[in-house]
């Protein structure tokens, strides 16, 4: 019983971390309908940027995450502009070719990381990594707690931004009805571009969390395709509260299966849940 309780606690911590790596996709795929399969690849790329800063200049990974956030914002602006010019502007079968396009991008990023850093796992060093808190029977690694706190903050911040600020509401408006926005004299493309920038900027911090929680390797993005899309689809496209709830459900499910059946079944959980959600309730838990 204690074991199960421990699994649930760890699962909640892990779940909040999953929320942080998925909120960006929740904006780009959930709100903007961009088939962003390269999202996890961008995430791993961010982790390697953090690794570089930490390894070269001994900067704390969280600070490094903050440093690369503006860079990723610009990166996102450029990426959306390219995607828009090539696909959305021309209209026809944007979805099919868009997926292929982002898959190609993901593979290119993967290989460039391999060519630069090799296939080995890389990790960062910081004072809070490697220690843990003891609560009687079970221990909680402090790195998990740090990731949990930052992830929760990041997700809440983005949710607040989308619901309270003018730009945030504009982003949600463009997701609801692009034409209406155009009739109001606003430029939907610019708003979407900005939103995509935000979605990518969040990855700077999320990438830092990813490498804090565990070492990263170049092909890690493949596992996170399942996790991030599972969370976003289960959440109901574009719902921030839903993203947090879905991510916690996934985190708890993963740790429970891990404790009961062992690590070899772990990869199937996120994808299994994703498939189940797609087949049974495609609009998600808190669908719009």
């Amino acid at each position, binding site marked *: 019983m204690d074991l199960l309780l421990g699994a649930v606690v760890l699962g909640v911590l892990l779940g909040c971390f999953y929320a942080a790596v998925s909120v960006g996709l929740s904006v780009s*795929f959930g709100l903007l309908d961009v*088939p962003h*399969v390269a999202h996890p690849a961008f995430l791993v790329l961010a982790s390697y940027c953090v690794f570089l800063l930490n390894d070269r200049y001994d900067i704390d990974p969280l600070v490094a995450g903050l440093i690369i956030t503006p860079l990723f914002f610009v990166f996102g602006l450029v990426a959306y502009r390219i995607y828009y010019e*090539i696909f959305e502007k021309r209209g026809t*079968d944007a*979805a*099919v*070719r*868009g*997926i*292929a*396009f982002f*898959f*190609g*991008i*993901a*593979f*290119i990023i*993967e*290989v*460039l990381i*391999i*060519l630069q850093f090799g296939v080995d796992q890389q990790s960062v060093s910081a004072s809070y990594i490697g220690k843990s808190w003891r609560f009687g029977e079970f221990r909680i690694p402090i790195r998990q707690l740090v990731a949990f706190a930052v992830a929760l903050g990041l997700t809440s911040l983005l949710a607040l931004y989308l619901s309270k600020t003018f730009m945030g509401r504009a982003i949600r408006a463009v997701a609801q009805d692009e034409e209406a926005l155009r009739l109001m004299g606003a430029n939907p493309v610019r708003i979407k571009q900005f939103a995509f920038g935000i979605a990518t900027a969040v990855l700077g911090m999320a990438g830092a969390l990813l490498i804090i929680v565990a070492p990263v390797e170049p092909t890690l993005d*493949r596992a996170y*395709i*399942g996790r991030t*899309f599972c969370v976003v*689809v289960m959440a109901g496209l574009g719902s921030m509260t839903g993203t947090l709830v879905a991510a916690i459900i996934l985190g708890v499910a993963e740790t429970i299966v891990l404790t009961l059946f062992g690590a*070899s*079944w772990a*990869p*199937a959980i996120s*994808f*299994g849940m*994703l*498939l189940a959600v*797609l*087949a049974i309730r*495609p609009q998600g838990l808190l669908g719009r």
Partner: protein
Amino acid sequence: MTKRSNSIAFWAGVAVFLVAVTAMTQIVRNEYPFFAGYVILQFVVLSVAWSILGGYAGYVNFGTNAFFGVGVYTAVALFKVSGAPLVVQIAAAGVVGMLLGLAVGLLTLRMRGIFFSIATIALAIIIETTVMNWRFVGGAAGIQLQRPPVMEPFDSYVKMLFFVQGVLVVIAVAIARYIQNSRIGRGLQALRDDELAAECTGVPTLKLKLVACMISGGLISAAGAPAAMYLQYADPSSAFNLSYSVSVLAMSLIGGTAHWIGPVLGAILLGTTQQLLAVTISSEVNVLVLGIMLVVFVVAAPKGIIGLLRPRYRLRAGGKT
């Protein structure tokens, strides 16, 4: 050209191809061309099969690796249980692949676009995980296989596999060509362009999708079956490698999916390039080239090579040949 003379030309081409493949196995002594050629032919089958669903119907299947791996492991399991001959392994893999295709079709009936693609990725990972936990076929560590003695008239097993894959190419192309020119192909094209409109005008979209899923899946699995004997080894992470999906996607899109010749051209072009790169530079650069070519073609030549060669495909997807 009339339909009849067209058919004659096609089957003459098939006959020439088969004679060439057979002659090559009898004349060429060096084994390397067969090692490389086998892989290229395999990708021709995979791409042609993929295009039946991905090209004609516009459903982008990212689970090519799922079907491929299922083919490999059907062959492995059969071989381990009864030492079944290669032909039986391939046929069984084809049947299992069709059943899997049916399951995928039923599960993803209402999904379109990216949701269908993600669902197929999910399925691939789930099946891979299951095979990893299946001790009988070696689990995550993989399994070594001993090739049975080679049959006449071939003097080495690889040459025989090369010939077998050549036959599979003919089967795949013949099926794809038949579908393209039949009611099925026209129905699939209709549902690709507008599923709702097709349904409203009486095209049995549901049935057609299931048929396309089954045929495409069965062919991919059949093409995967000989891979176990080719490598004399099978392990889940290489049998279910995502790069199969991306390669096949890239080959089909690069060639163009409106006509069966597109994936054939794409697979030959990209497959040969990959073989050359893997030998001369490294396998990482190989994947890089794959990614770049995929992006470049998707951006610059949406209809692929056949779109560049024959502008009429831009106006009218899928002609008669």
